[in-house]
C-alpha cells in the first residue's frame, strides 16, 4: 500500500524549520514551488510564486478572492498545466509525473464533493475503488473512518441526509482513504460554525501527526492561526510567508486579521 508503511520512517517536523535551512536536501520537502506561473492570455493569474512545504507541515494558503489561490492549487494537483516555473509534489514533477502525483495526494474541493445519493459506506467504497484499494483494505478503512467520526448509526444513510459539518469531516476522511502523503484542502470549512470548524481542525492535526502534509486554503483568520506556516497571496503573488507569530511581528500587529488587511489594502 502506498505511503502507509513509510510513515514511521518519515521525519516529522512538527516544530517546523525555516525553509532556507532545507535547501541542501530538497527531496525532504513535500511540496516545492519555484517561480510557478500561470497566464491566461494577457492575464497573469499566478505570478512566479515560490515556496516549500515540509513533510507533516500544515501550510495555510491565504489570499483574497481572485488572488489566484485556486489556480495555484490546481497547478499543484495536476488539474492545470503551469505556464512557467517548476514545482514538485512528493518529489514528483508537475509537468512530467502527474500520474505519480495523483497517487500521492488527496483533495477536498471547496464545493462539498461526496455523492449525496450514495450512502457513507458506498462513498468510501467508490473512492477507495478508484484509488485501486483492495476490497479488504476498503473494508478496514470503512470501519476506521466510521469509528473515527462516530458515524456507526449512519453507515447506510445517504450522505445527503447528514449535517454539513459531518459531511465535511467525512469528505476529509475520504480524501485520505488511500493514505496520501499530502492532502490539499480548498476552503474545506465554508459555511459552518466555529465549533464545527474546530472539530474539523482536530482531524487535520491528527493527520499531520501521522506525518501527512496538509496544504489548506481558507478565508477564516482563526483557521490561519492553526497552521504551522502561512503564505498570503495578493494579485497572483505571494506577499508574505512565515509562521503566524512571525507575520504578526513583521506587520507589527497582534491579529492575523490585521496582517491580512494590511497586505490586501496595500
Amino acid at each position: 500500500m502506498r505511503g502507509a508503511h513509510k510513515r514511521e520512517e518519515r521525519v516529522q517536523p512538527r516544530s517546523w524549520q525555516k525553509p532556507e535551512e532545507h535547501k541542501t536536501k530538497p527531496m525532504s520537502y513535500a511540496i516545492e514551488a519555484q517561480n510557478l506561473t500561470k497566464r491566461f492570455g494577457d492575464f497573469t493569474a499566478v505570478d512566479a510564486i515560490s515556496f516549500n512545504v515540509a513533510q507533516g507541515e500544515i501550510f495555510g494558503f491565504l489570499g483574497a478572492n481572485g488572488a489566484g489561490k485556486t489556480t495555484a492549487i490546481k497547478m499543484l494537483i495536476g488539474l492545470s498545466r503551469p505556464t512557467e516555473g517548476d514545482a514538485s509534489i512528493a518529489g514528483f514533477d508537475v509537468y512530467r509525473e502527474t500520474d505519480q502525483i495523483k497517487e500521492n495526494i488527496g483533495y477536498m474541493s471547496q464545493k462539498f464533493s461526496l455523492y449525496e445519493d450514495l450512502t457513507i459506506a458506498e462513498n468510501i467504497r467508490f473512492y477507495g475503488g478508484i484509488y485501486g484499494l483492495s476490497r479488504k483494505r476498503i473494508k478496514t478503512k470503512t470501519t476506521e473512518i466510521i469509528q473515527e467520526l462516530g458515524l456507526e448509526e449512519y453507515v447506510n444513510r445517504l450522505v445527503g441526509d447528514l449535517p454539513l459539518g459531518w459531511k465535511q469531516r467525512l469528505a476529509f476522511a475520504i480524501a485520505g482513504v488511500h493514505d496520501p502523503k499530502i492532502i490539499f484542502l480548498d476552503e474545506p470549512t465554508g459555511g459552518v460554525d466555529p465549533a464545527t470548524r474546530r472539530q474539523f481542525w482536530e482531524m487535520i492535526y491528527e493527520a499531520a501527526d501521522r506525518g501527512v502534509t496538509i496544504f489548506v486554503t481558507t478565508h477564516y483568520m482563526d483557521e490561519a492561526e492553526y497552521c504551522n506556516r502561512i503564505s498570503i497571496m495578493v494579485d497572483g503573488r505571494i506577499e508574505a510567508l512565515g509562521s503566524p507569530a512571525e507575520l504578526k511581528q513583521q506587520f507589527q500587529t497582534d491579529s492575523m486579521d490585521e496582517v491580512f488587511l494590511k497586505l490586501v489594502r496595500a
Partner: protein
Amino acid sequence: MIKIFLAFVRKELFHILRDPRTLAILFGMPVALVLIFGYTVTNEFKDASVAIFNEANDDLSYQLVDHLTASGHLKLVTSVRTTAELEQAFQSNQVKMGIVIPAGFEDDFFRQRKADVQLIADATEPNYATTLTSYARQMIATFQQNQNGTSGVQPYQVSTEIRMFYNPQLEGAYNFVPGTVALILMLICAMMTSLTIAKEKETGTMDLLLVSPLPPIVIILGKVTPYAILSFIDAIIVLFLGYYLFDVPVRGSLVLLLALVLLYLLVALALGVLISTKAPTQQTAMMTSMFALLMPTMLLSGFLFPIASMPSLLQYISKIIPAKYFIQIEQAIMLKAAGWDAVAFPALILFIMLIVLLTAAWRNFQVVYK
C-alpha cells in the same frame, strides 16, 4: 401596493432579458414551431422522388411520363427495368414511388379503350404514401381527359391500380415504432449523459475524479457505459412491444439492426459527452439537449413529418440529424427486409458523425482540463 408590484415585475423582466436561454425559448420557440408546422404539416410535397418502370416504351407512355413530371411535384430519379430493381431503389430510400406502365400501353389504350397503370408506393411512411399516390392518380386522370378531349364522354380510359409496399394496411405503427426507438435512444443516451456529467461538475465531484489516478478516458467511459447498456435494453423493449402489440415486424436481419442500433447509440452518447464538456451546469446541459437534440430529432428527422415535404432549408438541416439516417436504416431493415448494402450509406454517415463528434468532445475535454 402597485409600486411594489411594478418593482417586482421590473426585476423579473431583467431576469428574462438578461438570460439568452429564456429569450430563446420565449421568441425562438414560437418562430421555429410556426415555421416547422406551417411548412411541414401539410399534405403538399415537392420533388417527390419516383422511379419509372416503363415496359411499354411507346409514344403514349412517354407522353404520360412527361405529363406526370411536368408539374414539378414528381421528380423522375431513375428508370428501372425489373421489379427487383424497383425494390432496391425503395430499400436504399432512393425513391418513394414507382410508376409501372405495362407493355402495350398505347395499344391497350386505343384498341381496348382501357389501359392500366400501376402505382407502387413505399408505405413505410403511410401518410406520405397516400398523399403521393392520390396525387399521381389525379394526374393520370387529367392525362386521360387530355387524351379524350373536353367533349365530356371519356371513351378511352386509363385505370390506376395502387399498391402499398411493405405496409399494405397503412399501419401508423410502422412509422412510429422506428421513430420512437430513435427518439428514446437520443433522449436517454445524449440527454442523460450530458446531465450526469454536468451534475458531477456542478457538485464538485468531477474535480475529485480528475485529481484521482483515473485516466480521463476511464472517467468518461465509466459514466457512459451504464447509459449505453440501459438504452440498448430500452431499444429492444420498444422493438419487442412494437412487434407484439402493434405487429411491426423485423423482416430483415435482427443482428444487423441491433448492430446499427449500437452505432446510433454511440453517436448519441458522443453528442451527450460533447454537450457536457461545454455545459457547466445541469440546467445548461438540459436546455442544450432540448434545443440541439430533442426538438430536431422529433421534428426534422422524418419521424413526425416527411422530410420530402419540408422547405429546402429544413431539408438541408435534416441532413445533419443523426436520427434521420437511423430511422431510414430502421425502416429499411425492419420493413423493407433490406440487407447490408442498402443501409451502408446511412450507416457510413452515422460512422463519420461518430468520429467527428468524438474528436470534438475529446478536444474540448483536453482544453477544459489542461
